């Protein structure tokens, strides 16, 4: 039967194809076959958020998804957020707030925060905490992460205001 196939999908705006085996998870394929190391596997159970990517604009845990099922989808990873050398406002906000120590969880947090702000440009503390309850930072940079979300939200709102 079929334990190997070629998947075709869009990765950070570029059409790509890759041969994958049935057992390969999305995070494995991104890391090993596309050399994109920003998406990380940590808890391996969908609890920690380090492996967050967008599939068709929805955040998913790439450690709980088989690469097989990426066929035909539109995938965005942390590497696809910046516009050339210009960082995404959420990335800038994390740097400004110093919202990390080791940085292992940071891309997952940034992906979740960017998605939160796209749905809710001015989230309350409770809404932020609730949404990020599925992301773990073992360096415990949570207070700075809260600051970063607020800085990012203010940046996004001022950009929106500046638009004609």
């Amino acid at each position: 039967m079929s334990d190997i196939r070629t998947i075709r999908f869009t990765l950070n705006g570029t059409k790509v194809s890759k041969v994958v085996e049935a057992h390969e998870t999305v995070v494995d394929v991104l890391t090993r076959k596309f050399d994109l190391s920003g998406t990380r596997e940590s808890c391996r159970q969908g609890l920690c958020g380090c492996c967050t990517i967008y599939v068709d604009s929805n955040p998913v845990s790439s450690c709980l998804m088989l690469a097989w099922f990426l066929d035909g989808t539109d995938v965005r990873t942390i590497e696809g957020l910046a516009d050339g050398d210009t960082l995404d406002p959420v990335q800038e906000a994390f740097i400004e707030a110093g919202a990390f120590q080791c940085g292992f969880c940071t891309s997952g947090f940034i992906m979740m925060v960017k998605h939160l702000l796209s749905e809710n440009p001015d989230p309350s503390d409770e809404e932020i905490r609730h949404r990020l309850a599925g992301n773990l930072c073992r360096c415990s940079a949570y207070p700075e992460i809260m600051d970063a979300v607020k800085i990012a939200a203010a940046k996004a709102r001022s950009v929106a205001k500046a638009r004609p």
Partner: protein
Amino acid sequence: MEVAGLRGFDIVEPSSLEEAFGLLGTGDPAVRPMGGGTALMLMMKSELFKPTRLVSLRKLGEPFHGLGESADGKWVRIGALNTFSMLDHSPLMKSHFPIISRTMNTLANLRVRNVASVGGNLAHGDPHLDLPPVWMALDGEVRIVGPSGERVSAVADLYKGYYETTLEEGELITELRVPVKPDWKSSYTKVTTRAAHDWPAIGLAISVQLSGRQIQDLRIVLSAALDKPTRLTAAETVLRGRDIGEALLREAADAATEEVELETDNRGSQEYKTHLLRIYVTRALQDLVSEAAPK
């Protein structure tokens, strides 16, 4: 990281039911249908389940999709491949079954809710899941198709025991139907003993039809602390037709804790969970009554 549970299987994606039945009907319990796959992936990664073949249902089309009201408005049909997020965002669900959005609040996290499917969740048979007891309290039923035809089952009758369902080999849940009952109120209490988003120590889904402070009819479903989600019929009998008051709630809590023998596990001892049940069945009923008929 290489995991033995994630080795040596193939994936097939049938596009018709006949093809799916053919692929599933092998007599091999390691051939499994897959909806969103989140729960199955956890079992594979922890090596509790080592598949030989995964039969993805995602290309099966219409009978598994869609979410809408019946023409007479008496029930809502939910295709089995709807994700939890689709339910969470559905205005129809919000207006008829606000309990669902409230339950989603503490159900796993957004990334899992974006993938996990209604049907897969029902077929998984893990007694700790939050939604099966809720569908039971709402009198939900599932449409099941299989090689020998089609049948309908109450969600309550899907469960035989710990991870055991009444689904036969090759049978697939295509949709869930939930009756619309405008004069009923319902709540789900997820009692966790470690973190808010943890698996529950006990789950308690209750729906009531009230007339003032009198309980006309009700469903109380307990999950997580038993081998399967279970109706607490003795407690229901105590409460049915009577006015809510302190003495009645005590009597109902006594009945509830006497009719089941809860499991001890790493979320609490039998004694502790029995205490939790007593407290939370009382609080949940009080809240439902005061929400419907404020003093």
